[in-house]
């Protein structure tokens, strides 16, 4: 899980062009939106693209979004659960 969260932080920075942010600046449980990393609605769409590109996961239910993209840890948990389901 730690390796996955570390990868996710680098991928988020690259996907969202967060050039002034380093992976270590993003806390595992830090909120990604609003008061945390300050991401916006377009960033949310880019995170969906990130899941598709890097993990072949299509977020089919939009209502899952806020839960999945709450933090790096929730994203990692979602990816891990999805990979276990499809193993």
């Amino acid at each position: 899980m730690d390796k996955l969260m570390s990868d996710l932080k680098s991928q988020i920075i690259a996907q969202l062009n967060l050039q002034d942010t380093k992976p270590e600046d993003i806390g595992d449980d830090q909120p990604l939106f609003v008061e945390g990393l300050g991401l916006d609605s377009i960033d949310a769409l880019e995170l969906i693209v990130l899941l598709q590109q890097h993990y072949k996961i299509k977020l089919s239910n939009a209502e899952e979004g806020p839960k999945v993209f709450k933090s790096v840890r929730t994203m990692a948990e979602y990816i891990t659960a999805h990979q276990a389901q499809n193993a």
Partner: protein
Amino acid sequence: MSNSTYITSSCIISNHVVYKNGQPVFENKELGISDFLVSVYRYLNIQYPKFHKMDNLSKLGWLACQVLLQNNFDAAKYKPEETGIVLSNKNSSLDTDTRYLQTTNEIPSPALFVYTLPNIMIGEIAITHGFKGENAFFIFDEFDAAFVEQYVNNLLNCNILQCCICGWVELLNNEYKAALFLIEKNKSTNSIIFTKENLNKIYQVQNG
């Protein structure tokens, strides 16, 4: 009848040189366009993380506006709806349109898609500075100073605006030029009368 209005500041970015009121203030000839724009951002020493998310056209216009207003604009003089933005260029958002089209071969990029209109650049400037006045984006074959003079003077003389940022922001591949002018109703130090001749004079001095 038209009242006198004034060019109180200008910024040209062309050939990897940034000019403020006719004087070169930054130059970096070594870099490609994307890296050059980032180098101007670093030079200005501004913390605005959203800059990195913009497309190159918006970055160019946004940077030119930052230089234009720096030390030459008293925001407290105007209500948000009194400052407008009127920009123009030749190739609209074609630079980003092409990049976006390339992403559609796999997964289309939402972040690129939002920049497939040139007036998004106006939005980026307006959001940064809190401007809520009239805005418009026009497409011309070349910088049309006569049109800009007439259109902006009409907005100012009809009291639709008290202040206007106007000019030309063009970028396609590695070819680019930004020429922005701050137009106000009152004279200030080194201001000149807002006429098409003066617009062209400033535009052409650093023509590239």
